[in-house]
C-alpha cells in the first residue's frame, strides 16, 4: 500500500500511531545498518544503526512506533532520538502511517 498524504504538522512524529514501510521501499541490510531505496521518489536513505533497522522492520507488525521501539530494545532515554530518525524517514516518504479500520 502506498503512503497516504500525511496531515500531521512537519516536525512532529506520532510515536503512538501505527506505521509501516512504504510499499515502494526496499531494504538492504549492511554492517552499519541498512540502505533504504524508494522506487517512487528514487531516493536513497541510510539507517545508521542495526537497532534502527530493527525498529523500521518491525513497524508494520507493531501497533505503534513506540511499541516497535520497545520491541527492538530501545531504552527510554534514547526514544526521542529514534523518534527524530523516524520523522526524517516519514518526511522522505520512506515510512508512512498505516491505515487502520
Amino acid at each position, binding site marked *: 500500500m502506498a503512503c497516504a498524504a500525511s496531515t500531521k504538522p512537519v516536525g512532529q512524529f506520532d510515536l503512538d500511531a501505527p506505521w509501516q514501510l512504504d510499499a515502494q521501499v526496499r531494504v538492504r541490510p549492511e554492517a*552499519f545498518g541498512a540502505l533504504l531505496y524508494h*522506487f517512487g521518489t528514487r531516493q536513497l536513505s541510510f539507517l545508521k544503526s542495526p537497532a534502527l533497522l530493527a525498529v523500521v522492520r518491525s513497524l508494520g507488525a507493531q501497533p505503534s512506533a513506540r511499541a516497535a521501539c520497545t520491541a527492538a530494545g530501545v531504552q527510554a532515554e534514547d526514544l526521542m532520538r529514534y523518534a527524530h530518525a523516524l520523522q526524517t524517514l516519514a518526511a522522505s516518504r520512506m515510512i508512512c502511517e498505516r491505515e487502520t479500520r
Partner: protein
Amino acid sequence: MTTAPLPLAEQFQHGLQAPICLTWELTYACNLSCVHCLSSSGRRDPRELTTAECMAVIDELQRMQVFYVNIGGGEPTVRPDFWALVDHATGHDVGVKFSTNGVKITPEVARRLAGRDYVDVQISLDGATPEVNDAVRGRGSYEVALRAMRNLADAGFAGFKISVVMTRHNVGQLDVFKAIADRFGAQLRVTRLRPSGRGADSWNELHPTVGQQRELYDWLVAHGTDVLTGDSFFHLSGYGAALPGLNLCGAGRVVCLIDPVGDVYACPFAIHPSFLAGNVRDPGGFAGVWQHSELFSDLRRPQAGGACESCSAFGSCRGGCMAAKFFTGLPRDGPDPECVRGHGEQALAAAASAPAPRPSPDHSHRTAPYRTGERQPVPLTLSVRPPVSAHPPVSGRPPVSACNVNPLAGFIPER
C-alpha cells in the same frame, strides 16, 4: 547503552555488501566522438555482452539488492536490445537511470519513458550554447540534445536530468544551464572533468582554471541540493564547507563500473588495467568480483594519504580523485591535480618528466572528429611530375611501375 555510530563516510571506506552507485556501460559504440569521453568510445567491441548475458547480470543485481544502475556507454540507446534490457531491469527491482546524447529520444520514445516509474533519463550537454557544446561533443550535438529535452518535456517527463561536464569554457554558463533546466522542468547535474579516456588528451586545455574552480564552488554552495553533482567535486571541499553528498572517493567501496565486455573497474573514471578487478563472465559472476577481488579488497583497506595528511583540508577532500591523480601521473597518496591549496600544480610540475599512464582500451572512431575552431590546413606537398627521360634516372621521379601496362609507359615523344 548506545554509542554514536561512525560517520557514514568512515563506514563506507570498508566497503558494502553491494555497490550503491553502479555504472554500467552497455556499449562502446557511439554516434559521437566527444573529446573528453571517459571510455574512449566510438566503435562497438565485438566481445560486447549479449542480451542474455546482460539479463543475467540484471538478475544478479536484483539478488544483491542493487536498487538502481546508471546505464551509459558509448551511446547505450544504439544497442538494439536497449529497451528490452531497461524493461528487464525495471521488472526485476533494478531502477534505471540512463545517460544519452539524445539521438534516439523521439517524441514517441519520450512518451513511452514518461509513463515509466523506475526509469530516469539524463541528457548530456556540455555547453549552454551550440558553440561551446559542439566544440567538445561534435557538430550538431547541441541541437540533438535540445530536441530530446523538448520531446521529454512535451511528453510530460518531469525531472529528467541535464548532465554537464564542467570545463574552462562552460563554468561561466552555469546560470544559463540552470535556466535551460528550469525551462524544461528538468534537474541540472554538473560533474567534474576527468583526465580519463580521451579526456587524458583534452584535460590540460579544458579543465577549469583556479579562479573558475572557486567560482564553481561558490555557485554549488549557493544552489545546495537543487543541483546534483554525483558527489564529484569533493576535492573542492578544501575551500570551506563540504558540498552536499558523501564527500569520499567511492571507488571499489560504494561505486564501480561494468564495461560493455563485462570488465569490472573500480570506478567509471578508471578504465585501465591497473583498476580492473575482474569480469562478470568469471565463475563467481559480478558478486564474486565485488566481494572477493584483490583490487577491491585493497581499496577497502585504510589508504595512506601521504603528505596530504598533514594538510588542514585533508579531512574534507581526502586527497581527491584517485583516477584524476593516476591519469595525470600523480601517486595515489599524492594531492589531487586540481587541489584547491595549489599542491596539485607543484606535483604536476614535478611529475612532468615521466609520462602519465595512458587510458586503455581505446574504442575511438578511427576518423578524426570535426572540432569547431580547430580547422587547420592539411599539410601536403603538391609536386609536378618532371618530364621523364629514358636515362639517366632523375632522383625524385617515380620509376615506371612494373604494373603499368600502358604500352606508352615511359615513352616520351621527341619534339
